[in-house]
């Protein structure tokens, strides 16, 4: 029985924010499931709700934000758990890596102490045990001379090294699920590649499930098996990465892919990139119905009526667009 329940099951997730202009729904109608060992990518432009979704999974939404729907982790309803119970999960069974390696570490604590903290907290290790374990972890994520640098402070490390340290922290207790929220956006491409390789390797090695958030199509393409494209707080298309990237069923997905300058294709003088008209609207200004309505070249009155239902296109590949239903 237990083997059939997915590790993570998100249903009808909706997140409401208190803003100056009243309560707005920042995320709505997001569904996905994740089995053990599976990898999922969340992709979308800035402000589409990727981070809020991730924070909702951690139970760390900002003050004034409310989550509704259902998040079941290993059969347990997270939205119903007390903060205390959540604390036992966080850092223990669910780990998270954040975008900014420069600010994600406490500047006044040594990195060793910070890496050892979840170990002492969740596994009740003594200081010496935690230290040995933390050094091993740091070495595993590629910090040279980890034992010597255990008592160094974050400012004594480079950006790439710091991101490795935060990964070590997230992995310390061997979580079942790792959430990485744009873990490489602040880094160079060469470092980005190293970090992504590291995460991929660790996921494979430990059999963790991974949720990787990025706005870089290439990163998602190379790192995860399944992809979920978000726009305006909603999942507009999801399925196996190969299928989503290949079929590009939703007009937003199409627009996104087209706008991307590609490396390697020969440069034609005066070549123009196809663009998506308009700009991403504010949360409070989102149109009713399909959030992409208005910017979408195929907008029709029906688009504004209601959020289009998910249309299954392929095994596991679905998208929300009314045009898809009409298509054969």
């Amino acid at each position, binding site marked *: 029985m237990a083997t059939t329940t997915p590790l993570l099951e998100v249903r009808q997730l909706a997140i409401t924010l208190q803003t100056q202009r009243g309560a707005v729904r920042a995320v709505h109608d997001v569904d996905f499931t994740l089995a053990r060992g599976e990898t999922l990518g969340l992709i979308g432009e800035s402000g589409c709700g990727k981070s809020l979704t991730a924070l909702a999974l951690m139970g760390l939404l900002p003050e004034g934000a409310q989550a509704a729907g259902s998040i079941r982790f290993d059969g347990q309803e997270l939205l119903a758990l007390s903060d205390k119970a959540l604390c036992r999960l966080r850092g223990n069974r669910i780990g998270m890596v954040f975008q900014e390696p420069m600010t994600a570490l406490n500047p006044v604590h040594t990195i060793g102490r910070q890496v050892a903290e979840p170990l002492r907290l969740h596994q009740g290790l003594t200081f010496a045990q935690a230290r040995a374990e933390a050094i091993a972890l740091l070495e595993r994520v590629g910090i040279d001379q980890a034992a010597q640098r255990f008592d160094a402070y974050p400012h004594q490390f480079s950006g790439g090294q710091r991101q490795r340290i935060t990964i070590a922290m997230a992995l310390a207790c061997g979580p079942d699920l790792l959430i990485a929220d744009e873990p490489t956006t602040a880094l*160079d491409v060469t470092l980005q590649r190293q970090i992504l390789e590291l995460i991929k390797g660790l996921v494979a090695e430990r059999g963790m499930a991974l949720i990787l958030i990025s706005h870089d199509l*290439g990163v998602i393409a190379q790192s995860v098996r399944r992809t979920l494209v978000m726009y305006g707080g909603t999942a507009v298309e999801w399925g196996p990465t190969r299928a989503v990237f290949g079929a590009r069923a939703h007009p937003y997905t199409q627009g996104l892919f087209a*706008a991307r*300058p590609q490396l390697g294709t*020969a440069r034609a003088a005066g070549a123009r*990139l196809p663009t998506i008209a308009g700009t991403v609207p504010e949360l409070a200004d989102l149109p009713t119905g399909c959030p992409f309505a208005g910017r979408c070249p195929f907008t029709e009155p029906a688009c504004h009526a209601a959020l289009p239902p998910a249309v299954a296109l392929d095994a596991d590949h679905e998208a929300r667009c009314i045009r898809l239903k009409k298509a054969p």
Partner: protein
Amino acid sequence: MNTIDTVASSALPTGAGGQFDPAPLLLRVRDLQHHYPLPRTRLLGPRARVAALQGVSFDIRAGRSLGVVGESGSGKSTLARLVMALDTPSGGTVELLGRDLHRLPARELRAARRDFQMVFQDPYGSLDPRQTVERIVTEPLQALDSATGAELRERAAEVLAQVGLRPGDALKYPHEFSGGQRQRIAIARALITRPRLIVADEPVSALDLSVQAQVLNLLADLQEQFGVTYLLISHDLAVVQHLCDEVLVLHQGRIVERGAPEDLFSAPRHPYTQALVASVPRIDAL
């Protein structure tokens, strides 16, 4: 002009000899060096220094665009600041239209600034939040000559139209615009003096994919229309490839490779360029 070897040849005095290329030489950078001093750690003894640029030389011909790529800390921004004469180099020269910018008297340099302008990375940070778009856009003119208010207004309306903003936007404040629109404002500011050269330091790296495409198109259009020359700095190889005729790869303050972007990115020679190109995540890898 594909390899490092060409540095030597282009370093030769061109004089009237450059005529085999139809476009005249606009910018000539020779052996540019720059050090930043580090804070003293000991009472006596020498101050440590960071060599941000170590002997960089290149030329840009009018109407062409040169891309500069390289990892963080390779000296890209330093190069931009030196070309813009915002800092004094530790060594080397920057000649625009035959004049060494760093040897010009202050007054002449100010006048010469009409010919070269800059676009910055951060569309939120590079516009003064307390000035109207009109004031921001006309800033280079305010600093240059004593144009009347009416003239300034007219010129502002003109450039705003050129970058695709509405006339009504002139009296708004930056925070009323989206990132892409802000970058347009920044570009309008650079365009207003009808410069020959625009130095753009990471002009699109803070923008979303869909907005980035709009700005890249705008830059391309403007070049076509006005024949502006770009010195485009970016860490995104694809962006550079899309816009530039020639690329320099900067590594630890030195040029390690240069050439046409297609060639360079399809067949990198220098190990560093190879690593760089290999690291770019691609969707066609699927």
